[in-house]
């Protein structure tokens, strides 16, 4: 018996085991929402803006390992999710996004709320398609979930014209799908891997560079075993942070633009760089000619196109991290790297990650209290200075996960992603770190958190500035603080060089703002009050809490490597 497209849509979601979708209604998807109204297995989360919606789906997907599902209307509903699509594409987050579309007969007519969303998102989705025949709908949805969640995960967009939603067609939802152009790699080339192992075996100064692929594949335990067995020190990328527990003696820290001194020195001096699940982003390599100049490089990645793109490698291995590590563990023999480890420890002692402790409350102090406070928790960051501090100072292990926007660097990601993570993990504590710039980019999602009963704890680092850019202006642009001061008003002096007693007040008042949403607000200005604020926020189970930490404007993220410079040339003070 035939059924309508809208009925098949809901049936497909049910068969995919979807329990939560993030949806914002509109003219071309009202049929689908009407169908969702008639069932109760799938909960619909209504955000306050589609950009918030898709970041919520990303946070949900990252924290649960499930596919995040979005449903938005055509036109502006669809264009508003584009930033999130790009973000998910960069950070390999599995999403299936349904967009409504005007009826087939109107496509191309510049109809009301018509945009060519598939065309617009071609380069920021793993796959995207407009459903043009009702009988294709089931197969396309099946394809979408399969493509989004396999290989290198990513976002898939399905554009469904309104008349396809109401047209009758086959009731079947396929249980599997064959795609002749899409065969995710499920094997590993043992010969290549052997070469990699031989290099590791012979290395005097081996180093593991772990990227986000380890966290995505859930290969953390295997990587830890390999590192410990062969005594290989580990550095991570931002996305790879947490690949092995940060407390492990073999863990050095993050490498890259704001990496730890010892980590960047280790990359610069190692003789074998064993990289896995990273794409050698420019933030990791700096000047390519000076990147790991003494090292033979092994590169394991599930995406063929990530290999030998930015860095020429000696041993490329196309494989899922789990598969490759499993095989390596079969061969792994213990080895002595004490001398190399001592050298790294010496670097670390020379320039540890440490902020001054003699001028009030610093970000480091806040993270130290956070590290002591939360048992099992999901940490989510926005983008900017606080994000870099979080990746420098947060302690991560199997009970503490970090979610952050790495590739695209999307301000406004933090709050909604934290809400999505909380919705997916109601039993865990979710802590969002954000700056005063980024938080305001999706502040409307406070309402979503309140109505969803998602008591996330928002640690807001307020320094009155768009700090990351201000830092560049301070160091490289002669302190010309153009368009980075959030207190600046029309009557401020043109050549302002920083905060002074005549500065106008900050707007908004985040505490009053939190309260107006029915959430909680706590302002913290001194180190002595950090712990009490965190403890108090943890008692609020009904609604989110903004803890506004008043941070000195002078606090900058160090070390820092100027964009394009070699990683060994770090600004340390």
């Amino acid at each position, binding site marked *: 018996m035939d059924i309508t497209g809208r009925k098949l849509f809901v049936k497909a979601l049910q068969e995919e085991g979807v329990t939560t979708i993030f949806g914002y209604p509109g003219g071309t998807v009202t049929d689908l929402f009407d169908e969702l109204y008639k069932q109760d297995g799938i909960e619909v989360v209504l955000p306050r803006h589609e950009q918030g919606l898709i970041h919520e789906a990303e946070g949900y997907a990252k924290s649960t390992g499930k596919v995040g599902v979005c449903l938005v209307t055509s036109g502006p509903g669809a264009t508003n999710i584009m930033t999130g699509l790009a973000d998910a594409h960069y950070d390999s987050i599995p999403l299936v996004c349904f967009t409504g579309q005007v009826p087939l007969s109107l496509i191309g007519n510049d109809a009301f709320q018509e945009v060519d969303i598939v065309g617009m998102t071609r380069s920021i989705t793993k796959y995207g398609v407009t459903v043009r025949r009702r009988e294709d709908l089931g197969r396309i949805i099946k394809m979408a979930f399969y493509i989004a969640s396999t290989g290198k995960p990513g976002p898939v967009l399905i554009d469904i014209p309104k008349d396809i939603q109401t047209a009758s067609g086959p009731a079947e939802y396929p249980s599997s799908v064959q795609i002749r152009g899409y065969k995710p790699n499920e094997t590993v080339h043992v010969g290549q891997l052997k070469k990699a192992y031989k290099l590791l075996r012979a290395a005097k100064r081996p180093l593991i560079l772990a990227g986000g692929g380890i966290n995505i594949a859930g290969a953390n335990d295997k990587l830890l075993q390999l590192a410990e067995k062969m005594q290989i020190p580990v550095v991570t990328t931002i996305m790879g942070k947490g690949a092995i527990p940060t407390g492990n003696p073999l863990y050095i820290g993050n490498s890259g633009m704001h990496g730890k001194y010892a980590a960047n020195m280790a990359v610069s001096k190692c003789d074998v760089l064993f990289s896995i699940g990273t794409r050698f982003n420019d933030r990791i390599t700096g000047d390519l000619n000076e990147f790991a100049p003494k090292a033979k490089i092994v590169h394991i990645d599930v995406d063929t196109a990530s290999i030998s*793109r930015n860095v020429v490698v000696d041993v490329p291995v196309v494989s899922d991290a789990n598969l490759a590590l499993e095989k390596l563990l079969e061969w792994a023999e213990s080895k002595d790297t004490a001398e190399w480890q001592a050298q790294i420890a010496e670097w670390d002692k020379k320039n540890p990650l440490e902020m001054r402790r003699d001028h009030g409350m610093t970000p480091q102090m806040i993270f130290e209290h956070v590290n002591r406070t939360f048992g099992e928790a999901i940490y989510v960051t926005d983008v900017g200075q606080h994000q870099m501090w979080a990746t420098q100072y947060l302690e991560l292990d199997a009970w503490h996960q970090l979610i952050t926007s790495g590739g695209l660097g999307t301000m406004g990601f933090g709050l909604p992603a934290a809400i999505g993570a909380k919705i997916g993990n109601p039993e865990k504590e979710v802590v969002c770190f954000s700056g005063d710039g980024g938080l305001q980019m999706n502040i409307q999602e406070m309402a979503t958190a309140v109505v969803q009963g998602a008591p996330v704890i928002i640690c807001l680092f307020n320094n009155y500035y768009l700090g990351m850019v201000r830092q560049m202006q301070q160091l490289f642009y002669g302190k010309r603080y153009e368009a980075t001061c959030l207190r600046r008003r029309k009557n401020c002096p043109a050549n302002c060089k920083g905060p002074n007693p005549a500065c106008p007040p900050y707007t908004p008042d985040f505490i009053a703002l939190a309260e107006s949403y029915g959430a909680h607000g706590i302002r913290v200005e001194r180190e002595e009050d950090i712990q009490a604020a965190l403890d108090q926020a943890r008692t609020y189970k009904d609604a989110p809490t903004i803890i506004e930490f008043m941070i000195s404007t002078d606090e900058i993220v160090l070390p820092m490597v100027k964009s394009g410079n070699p990683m060994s040339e770090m600004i340390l003070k």
Partner: protein
Amino acid sequence: MKNRWIALYVENQVGVLAKVSGLFSGKSYNLQSLTVGTTEDETVSRMTICVTSDDITFEQIKKQLNRMVEVIKVIDLTDVPLHMKEILFAKVLGINAAEKLEVFQIAQVFHVEVSDVGNDSVLLECKLTERRNNELIALLRSKFRRIEVVRGGAVAIESISTSCR
């Protein structure tokens, strides 16, 4: 930097051409020509693509094409014996009787067909290799004041018996 050839089997669907060509523009790859048409299987189209690139970029282009869901198969034709032809129309305009004669002679030497003719113009229909077409255009341009050229882009298929290009 040199010219390289790719044969690409893709799904014969809406948007696939845009996706492939968008890859070249989005990633600043240097696309020389791209032709597309359906194959013996009408659900599959075959593209013949010529790019100018260095070795590393070319490897990356092939990988990027391969990871597209709509791409079924990527074949590197750069060093493969193959048959390659490009269709080209060249109109030579504003010529006198002597010049017309000269165009006819050129057509004979280049083995191209004279497919139309008027009082002061001749239309040549060429099915040559891309390089030979380039040479023909250069010659016509050097000899005549006004020419009008339309090119179809090269199509290529692997050889059966020959071992040269």
